[in-house]
């Protein structure tokens, strides 16, 4: 396989993207999970789909848009959707989770309209739904690299603020933290990472890489830093072994990656049950 990776650019792109996403999705995912915002990732991935459909539609109908990378439009929609979710959470203060189904169904609705306007697409759209890591281009790779570096740096610099906001929002506000701005930066990062990871596992599975490694690590980790560390390790194991397995056995890479993270999760639960105990 190493030889094949060295020879084929598409395989290089696939593995590089996988490594990046395996790092950044669980890294941000830890904050998403502990803030109980896991479903937001799902809602935003469906909005991203609408953006991709819009981009493909423009490409089909207008010559000037040919060659436009659908990833960019997906990002624009994802960020827009995240802002809209925040707005809705403000409007429905007592039903904050309502924002999620509203955005989720809105995203799909919009996507379906765009698809029908274009009289359907070729296999392209299918690859966005379930991921097609082998279709990642060099341009995609650079974009994903830029997002990964940006997100990693922001999390590093704002670590203690993000921690405080996640652990105890009321205390964060009472201690004079600019909670709104921090949350805003956070949600933009979520939107960008979702748009970036959909190439690897597809829109329908995007939230899995942000939640499954974290769910496994929360079971066994001591403390927050260890939770982050283990989540990233689990994420990388899933992506790398998933891609390799898919390559050898000719399976769908996105699905293989997700199933491996499910196995890791089950393993973590079993280890916890048999191994060390907590006072609880």
């Amino acid at each position, binding site marked *: 396989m190493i030889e094949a990776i060295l020879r084929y650019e598409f395989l290089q792109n696939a593995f590089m993207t996988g490594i990046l996403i395996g790092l950044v999705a669980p890294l941000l995912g830890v904050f998403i999970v*502990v803030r*109980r915002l896991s479903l937001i990732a799902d809602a935003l991935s469906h909005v991203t789909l609408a953006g991709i459909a819009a981009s493909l539609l423009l490409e089909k109908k207008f010559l000037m848009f040919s060659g436009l990378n659908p990833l960019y439009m997906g990002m624009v929609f994802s960020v827009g959707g995240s802002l809209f979710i925040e707005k809705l959470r403000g409007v429905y203060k007592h039903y904050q989770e309502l924002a999620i189904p509203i955005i989720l169904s809105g995203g799909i609705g919009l996507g379906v309209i765009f698809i029908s306007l274009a009289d359907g697409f070729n296999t392209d759209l299918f690859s966005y739904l379930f991921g097609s890591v082998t279709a990642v281009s060099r341009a995609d790779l650079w974009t994903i690299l830029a997002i990964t570096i940006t997100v990693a740096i922001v999390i590093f*610099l*704002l670590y*203690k*603020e993000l*921690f*405080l906001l*996640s*652990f*105890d*929002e*009321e*205390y*964060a*506000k*009472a*201690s*004079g*933290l600019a909670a709104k701005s921090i949350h805003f930066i956070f949600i933009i990062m979520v939107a960008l990472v979702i748009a970036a990871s959909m190439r690897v596992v597809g829109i329908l599975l995007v939230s899995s890489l942000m939640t499954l490694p974290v769910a496994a*690590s*929360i079971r066994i*980790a*001591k*403390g*927050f*830093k*260890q*939770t982050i560390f283990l989540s990233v390790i689990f994420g990388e194991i899933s992506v790398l072994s998933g891609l390799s397995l898919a390559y050898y056995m000719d399976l769908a890479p996105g699905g293989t990656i997700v199933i491996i993270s499910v196995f890791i999760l089950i393993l973590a639960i079993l280890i916890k049950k048999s191994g060390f105990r*907590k*006072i*609880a």
Partner: protein
Amino acid sequence: MAGKPVIEIKGLSYRYERETVLDNITLTVPENAFLGVVGPNGSGKSTLMKLILGLLKPQHGEIYLFGQEIRRFKNWEKVGYVSQKANSFNTGFPATVFEVVSSGLTKKMGLFKFLKKEDKNKVSKALESVGMLEFSFKNIGELSGGQQQRVFIARALVSDPELLILDEPTVGVDAHNVNSFYQMLGDLNKNRGITLLMVTHDIGTVSDKVTHVACLNKTLHFHGNTEEFEQLERNGLSEIYGHEVHLLDHHHEHEHGGVTR
């Protein structure tokens, strides 16, 4: 004992939509005081807390913290806050006690700063002062309610606050731990000179620790030091304060009663 005021509230009113929850409150908390705020449910105690913490904006009247109008107040690291445990945190949160207490330094350290050795020493010291140092590397969810509350006190203490605000801190703490908890608060007040403001249901248990008492039920019914309060109790507090207050004898060595709800 009575120094310059730490909190000064003048003619403060607050309403949620149509319902008035605080009506024309005027209250001064001097330096080194330990003020117990009592009142029935819905008396506006929590709203008063939130206003003092800057979580809500005053609609009428003024609040001064350390002599500065609250809207212009910036030194929030001088104010420590311990909430009702049940309200504000997720017990499954994967953080160690040490990490939780470190987060109390977030504002004081400022943006883009990292925990240095001296900061870590401060965290250990704060944990030691509440008797929780040996639990530093346990996950917060593994502790009992009373232990968790001590950790939150440590989080508030780590930034060396001059004022500590506690909102019913003993909710969810086992009865037999409540006394040692109050003992610790009394020590903080006496030995470290921290001004304390505590909203509580059981003033009876703390009556030998607090220096001042305020009775709140939308308006301020009484505000003064503990001796005046006991005087008032003997003269029939329930008349002014409403029916929800019961005078209660408790099994303390001193024989005066306390007010509880």
